[in-house]
């Protein structure tokens, strides 16, 4: 997890090595795919290095990861429409447990809220800050995600 946001933390090789595993895990959870998780983790790191100055690099990375995952889902959605078919988003999903495939199938913003709330342990206010929306929207997205999970897992 990349939970702590240390103001003024320096960005150097040690910092990047320390946060890298957490970034890849978060990427996998946000995208539902090992490969895409690696991709957005790398993109987020490169984005951080492009910045002239970042006050809270961990928070910056988390926000980048979420935005990249939502953009990726949007592009994948267009691709699926083009193909006029559906595809398994994560081939290993069903091998984890019965919950993960349902999480993977959630819309990207709902999945992001679920991951930030139950994996990163962020408050609704913090999630709202990451997503750039109001806390009420976060509550609504979380409720819809849980409803979907309940329907799929406890019919």
């Amino acid at each position, binding site marked *: *997890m990349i939970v702590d946001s240390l103001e003024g933390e*320096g*960005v*150097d*090789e040690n910092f*990047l*090595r320390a946060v*890298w*595993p957490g970034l*890849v*895990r978060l990427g*996998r*959870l946000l995208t539902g795919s*090992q*490969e895409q*998780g*690696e*991709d957005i983790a*790398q*993109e987020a*790191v*490169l984005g951080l*290095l*492009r*910045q*002239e*100055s*970042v006050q809270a690099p961990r928070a910056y990375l988390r926000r980048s990861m979420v935005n990249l995952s939502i953009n990726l889902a949007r*592009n994948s959605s267009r*691709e699926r429409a*083009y*193909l*006029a*078919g*559906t*595809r*398994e988003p994560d*081939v*290993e999903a069903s091998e*984890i*447990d019965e*919950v*993960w495939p349902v*999480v993977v199938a959630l819309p990207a913003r709902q999945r992001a809220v*679920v*991951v930030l709330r*139950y*994996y990163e342990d962020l408050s609704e206010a913090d999630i709202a800050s990451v997503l750039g929306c109001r806390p009420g929207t976060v509550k609504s997205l979380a409720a819809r995600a*849980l409803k979907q*999970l*309940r329907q799929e*897992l*406890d019919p």
Partner: protein
Amino acid sequence: MTDLEARLRASLFRVAEDTTIPDLDVTAQVDSSVGAGGHTPDGSHRPDGTVPVPAPRLGRRGLISVLAVAIGVIAVTVSIAVIQRETGGSSPAGTDHPTTVSQHGEIRGLLLISPPMSAEHVSSGSIVITGTRVFTITVGDSGRFTASVPPGNYTVIGHSPEYGGNEGDCITQSGPVTVRQHRTVSVRVRCLEK
């Protein structure tokens, strides 16, 4: 926390544990951002000659840091040369190099077969990278490829024996890619089966 929420939380942590952590090529990425002389990641020179984020670290370490960066540059240059040999052809044969290898950027990617009704999977084949020059790369069973190329805009097209017997064009969804000096661009080359 309800039972459903507890199951959800447990599942997320299980997935996190199950995630494979690849190596981070910090040397290449940090090197591109903290190059001596105050160059920014995009290669431009800043008026005050400093790089705000990493500069304090460099300042404290002094000469040792400068030496470490120099060693990093050499390591990256050697790595790129090795990758070029392994990928079999990102260097154009028989042409002059307008840029040195150390000025190159990198295109890294995955060749994928995307059937409409089943999961996409990696494929062997070949990649043709077309810009000011043409680079051809052989892709192994892992589907992964890496090419060191001069900065510029490139069209990346793949071919797979599984996709029209190497006749069909596999494409990047985002179109042409822009490579900058010392930067890595990730692409996914998909063979979109209808």
